[in-house]
């Protein structure tokens, strides 16, 4: 079956429009595909062997990521190293790099939000970007009309996200699985299209410019220092998000979300209100998107509907799944990789999206559980109970 593969790829690739025949391409692609197919088959075989081993009950060593996370000996120094790196980052690297890092951190925050919806509660939301847009436009419009500042709007943006989450979530949460996915996708597109077409309200495709960056007690800042300021602001917001999401995960509500993901009917039979639980997950996820949107608007100082296409939703979803659903650290790593990878792939310029797509496929084929899979919280207090 792999023999048909190279043949097909070559031919379509060879002809451009009418006259140009590119035999050279054919040659390169042919060789490349031939070699790759060997690598591919080797890897698949290895994966299968691993699977069989696991099934046979042989002890498979827990993946290194997991061991590192479990041992305090490892993770405390790692945490310190990350903290030092995070603090030093804007002073060591250029402004451009810092700017990218801010973007990546925004993605960390909103991905953690989506992780609540998809990873914990198991609701596939393909229109998440709508809430991101709501946050961004909340800031832009409130600032434009009323001159409200960043700090005032940040909570308003979060509240707007929550509100829209409830409003949109309410009618659709009866739907299951993929129907929910397509309806959320629909809502995402509806919001974007409204922003694009309702000129009087949103200034249409031309967007809103000159959105002020966040201020600090009215101090005037240069572009450079304001980016550094934004960077630390984002670090703070990220820490806050991690803190809250982590606690939610271990709470009564968080448990209900996971149970809902695992088995809806059993969950109801255990006395959990399905609609309410879904709605809280949906709305809370939206809250984080709202906040992320406000920061995004403040960072770019210009927004238009083109920033909020369905691809954006898809990328955020990729972050969550690639990182490892339900795992906070996984999602953070996923966000950093997926957002920074295309940026650093600029060296390959036109090939970067091609590579990005391929990476997604390869990742999923060889690590379907995401980078950090299997990490589950274990209640450690039982030992104490047994002695008591």
């Amino acid at each position: 079956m792999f023999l048909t593969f190279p043949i097909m790829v070559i031919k379509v690739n060879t002809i451009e429009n009418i006259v140009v025949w590119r035999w050279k391409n054919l040659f390169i692609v042919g060789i490349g595909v031939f070699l790759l197919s060997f690598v591919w088959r080797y890897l698949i075989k290895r994966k299968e062997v691993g699977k069989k081993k696991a099934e046979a009950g042989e002890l498979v060593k827990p993946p290194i990521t997991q061991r590192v996370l479990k041992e305090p000996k490892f993770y405390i120094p790692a945490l310190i190293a990350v903290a030092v790196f995070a603090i030093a980052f804007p002073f060591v690297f250029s402004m451009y790099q810092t700017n990218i890092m801010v973007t990546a951190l925004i993605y960390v925050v909103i991905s953690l939000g989506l992780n609540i919806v998809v990873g914990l509660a198991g609701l596939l939301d393909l229109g998440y970007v709508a809430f991101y847009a709501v946050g961004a436009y909340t800031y832009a419009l409130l600032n434009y009309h009323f001159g409200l500042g960043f700090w005032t709007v940040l909570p308003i943006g979060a509240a707007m996200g929550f509100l829209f989450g409830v409003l949109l979530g309410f009618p659709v949460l009866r739907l299951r699985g993929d129907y929910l996915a397509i309806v959320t996708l629909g809502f995402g597109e509806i919001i974007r299209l409204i922003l694009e077409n309702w000129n009087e309200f949103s200034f249409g495709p031309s967007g809103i410019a000159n959105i002020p960056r966040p201020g600090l007690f009215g101090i005037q800042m240069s572009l450079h220092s304001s980016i550094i300021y934004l960077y630390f602001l984002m670090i703070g917001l990220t820490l806050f998000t991690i803190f809250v999401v982590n606690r939610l995960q271990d709470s009564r509500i968080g448990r209900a979300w996971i149970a809902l993901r695992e088995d809806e009917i059993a969950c109801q039979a255990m006395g959990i209100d399905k609609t309410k639980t879904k709605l809280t997950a949906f709305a809370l996820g939206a809250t984080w998107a709202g906040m992320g949107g406000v920061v995004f608007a403040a960072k770019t100082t210009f927004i238009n509907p083109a920033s909020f296409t369905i691809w954006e939703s898809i990328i955020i979803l990729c972050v969550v799944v690639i990182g490892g659903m339900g795992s906070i650290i996984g999602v953070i790593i996923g966000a950093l990789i997926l957002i920074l990878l295309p940026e650093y792939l600029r060296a390959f310029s036109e090939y970067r999206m091609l590579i990005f797509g391929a990476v997604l496929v390869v990742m999923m084929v060889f690590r379907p559980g995401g980078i950090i899979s299997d990490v589950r919280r274990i209640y450690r207090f039982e030992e104490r109970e047994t002695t008591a």
Partner: protein
Amino acid sequence: MCGGSTGLKNAKQQHNAMEPILEVKTLTMDFGGLRALDSLDLAVYQNEIVALIGPNGAGKTTFFNCITGLFPPTKGEMLIAPPGKKPTKLNGLKPNIVTANGLARTFQNIRLFPNMTVLENVMIGRHCRLSSGILGAAFRNRATVLEEEKVVEESYAMLKKIGLDAFVNDFAKNLPYGAQRRLEIARAMATDPFLLLLDEPAAGMNLQETRELDELIVRIRDEEGISILLIEHDMKLVMSLSDRIFVVDYGKKIAQGTPAEIQNNPAVIKAYLGEEIDA
């Protein structure tokens, strides 16, 4: 086992003295043209173990699904009267409200939360008896912390009672089959029910496990004061366990009475074609 008419009379007199804790009247359920339940009457009294038996496809699980709010019945009335509380009509209540009202169930084909630990599974059962909300979870005020500690303690105690404490931190999906069935019971018990609905609790269990289950169910009734309504095919278990038995076939009740009466009932024997009535 007490059989014969004197035993029945005693039971009847006893029942006349009090109201049933679950009373179902003319319950009917249609699926399209198929009548799965045909004006079924059933009552369960305090501290009873009642069995619902019948051939496969007789509508037993449908009956459970109607009471617990998963299917809206076509016709009929379902009433509960939790001891010490006023009676409530179950018709039209959502499953979670039914559970909150004190009816808990297990499932025929085990429905645990496979990727949660055993302890977490039981903690989910406590969910409806807890109250902490989102803000509490995010900022961990004192009430939330205390509540969480209590849940863990209670859930662990429950696991001990059911005999699953060795598995606390294992994933539910990794438990042996019999233990999964017991975990379902533990999870249902965690919701603080006054009536426990068990859907084929012994299915797939070996002799040893079935015997343990028998003891467990009696203990639940005697020590916790929880009444039990169970669906079961293991006649030996049903006969030794139940105070009363209801037999359904094609959605209709064909007999009811004590184990001894049921064993000698010609209609029942006919429904089963004589099989398995040699308890």
